């Protein structure tokens, strides 16, 4: 395939990337701004990062968010992997289409509806809202993403490997943990990282299901911005973007490495 450089291509590319990344880039640049005014550049400084480090409320919100994201990612990975396993391995069972449809539906479900329905459920069951209700809520949608990632890997998994493990004396559970899981590990880890980042930046569902004392970072930022944007928020956002970017890059590199190792 010949890839010719044309002005049309170059223009499309530039416009696309500018559209996507200009706001983020501006936000990151202004996090190093000396001035308190977000729109006026007054020289380079890292003082807002220092300011952020002294902001107790922000730090506790960050800590809540990290805990929620970690628990969500772990729970979603376990449930999502199990769902993917059943969907791929147990072929055509009764109600499979319905089951797989219901697994993937939350991917396209409006967040407002997911959040509202969970809120109503928690109220109906009179569960006190707090950190754990956010974890449950995040797990419900994050596990769908894990199921998608893991099942795409399981589809190409040679079932004779599992049969070989059984043949060599493994019980089905032993075969799963000593053969299947190590082989699909890269996609399970990728699924975990995906769930982690999804939970990290969710605002809508978290604000529906959270309670007192469990303010997550996105909620904190959102409420802080309503009182006026401080460069502190820019600094915080820059850190968040970096975290998410690193997570996504690591996940995709793991997947890539795995594929190239297989084909090599």
């Amino acid at each position, binding site marked *: 395939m010949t890839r010719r450089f044309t002005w049309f291509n170059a223009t499309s590319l530039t416009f696309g990337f500018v559209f996507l990344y200009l706001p983020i880039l501006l936000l990151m640049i202004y996090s190093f701004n000396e001035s308190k005014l977000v729109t006026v550049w007054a020289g380079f400084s890292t003082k807002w990062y220092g300011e952020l480090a002294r902001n107790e409320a922000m730090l506790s919100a960050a800590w809540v968010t990290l805990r929620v994201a970690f628990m969500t990612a772990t729970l979603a990975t376990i449930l999502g992997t199990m769902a993917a396993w059943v969907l791929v391995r147990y072929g055509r069972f009764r109600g499979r289409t319905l089951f797989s449809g219901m697994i993937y539906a939350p991917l396209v479900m409006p967040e407002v509806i997911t959040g509202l329905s969970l809120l109503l459920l928690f109220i109906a069951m009179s569960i006190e809202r707090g950190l754990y209700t956010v974890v449950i809520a995040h797990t419900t949608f994050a596990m769908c993403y894990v199921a998608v990632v893991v099942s795409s890997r399981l589809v190409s998994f040679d079932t004779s490997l599992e*049969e070989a493990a059984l043949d060599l*004396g493994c019980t089905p559970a032993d075969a799963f943990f000593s053969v299947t899981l190590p082989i699909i590990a890269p996609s399970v880890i990728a699924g975990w990282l995906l769930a982690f980042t999804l939970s990290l930046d969710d605002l809508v569902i978290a604000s529906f299901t959270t309670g007192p004392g469990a303010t997550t970072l996105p909620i904190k930022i959102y409420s802080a911005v309503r009182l006026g944007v401080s460069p502190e928020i820019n600094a915080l956002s820059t850190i968040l973007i970096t975290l998410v970017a690193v997570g996504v890059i690591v996940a995709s590199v793991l997947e890539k490495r795995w594929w190239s190792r297989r084909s090599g």
Partner: protein
Amino acid sequence: MTEQGGTSLTGTHQPQVFAPWLDETAEPIVEFRGVTKKFGEFTAVDDVSLKIHSREFFALLGPSGCGKTTLLRMLAGFETPSAGKILVEGQDISAVPPNMRPINMMFQSYALFPHLTVAANIGFGLRRERKSNSKVKARTDEMLKLVQMEKFADRKPHQLSGGQRQRVALARALARNPKILLLDEPLGALDAKLREQTQFELMNIQEELGTTFVIVTHDQEEAMTVASRIGLMNHGDLAQVATPADIYENPNSRFVADFIGDVNLITGTAGESAQENGEAVVVFHPDGGQMNFNARSPDGIQPGTKCDLAVRPEKIHISPTKPESAANLLEGHVHDIAYAGNLSTYHVRLADGSIVKAQEANRQRLGNRDITWEDPVFLSWESGSAILLDR
């Protein structure tokens, strides 16, 4: 049919022939009793009964989709029979899960664990037996030596060639010292030269260990080379179970004669039979022909039965002049010559337009050959070389 029928033809007159299947009282190591396997409406294996004896190298042969792999997978425990029983050493193993059977399998794709080294792959099954580390190590080394892969112990499967992977898969399947080793198209992924060499290695290893081998293959040459007996399958049925020599010389049906090797089939009717050298020789009237032939009929055939006369191309003699005293003679013109270096196959067109193949070894150089295209030729064969197949 008489089981010994082939021995006079094979010419192997060893004092002690390994043939436990001739002994009616011998206890088989594996027995299929009326085993049927259905996948929905499709019957993959249809009421198969078969005995396999200890130390045998048994080949399940057949075209793809004939049910041979399903039969093997039922023995391994990956499929459960829809009906019938599978006995191993007299014990019904239907309820035994694959990990508890004294059977190991070598998979077509080799199914080596990509995340483990060669040594860890071979030791995988041993570790499941809760053996001590030193015992696992000793047995792994022994297996590496058996398949000559000592140097590659620390490699990962993706760093090995196809032939090396095949050896590791064999070593892994043998490590637990199974009573029965199942091989599912074990040489399918190897090139022709390596395949031939590996066939002999497999035979040597089997002889050395004395393990019962059951191999599934679609390659009739491979089955003929390695197996003590062949079970030829077609559409879920066992068409014939016999030694390679027997199945080649005494096929029991058109399908068997056609699947194993090359064969000329002439349709006609059986006539009177007479005893000749202790064998029934039957007169055969080909359809639309004036001349009759003589052929063997190991099963015995009623006069007037519609049947086929089967004769292998290499058993037909071709000559430009009419041979003296030939009981079975055909006349035709050379239509085509397939030159294969060591052999030439002559396609001879008879007066009625049908083609009969005759094969000759090229003892002389090509230039000195006295038969060429469009030559009138005579085809003849011994009565004992032709066989009548009931339809």
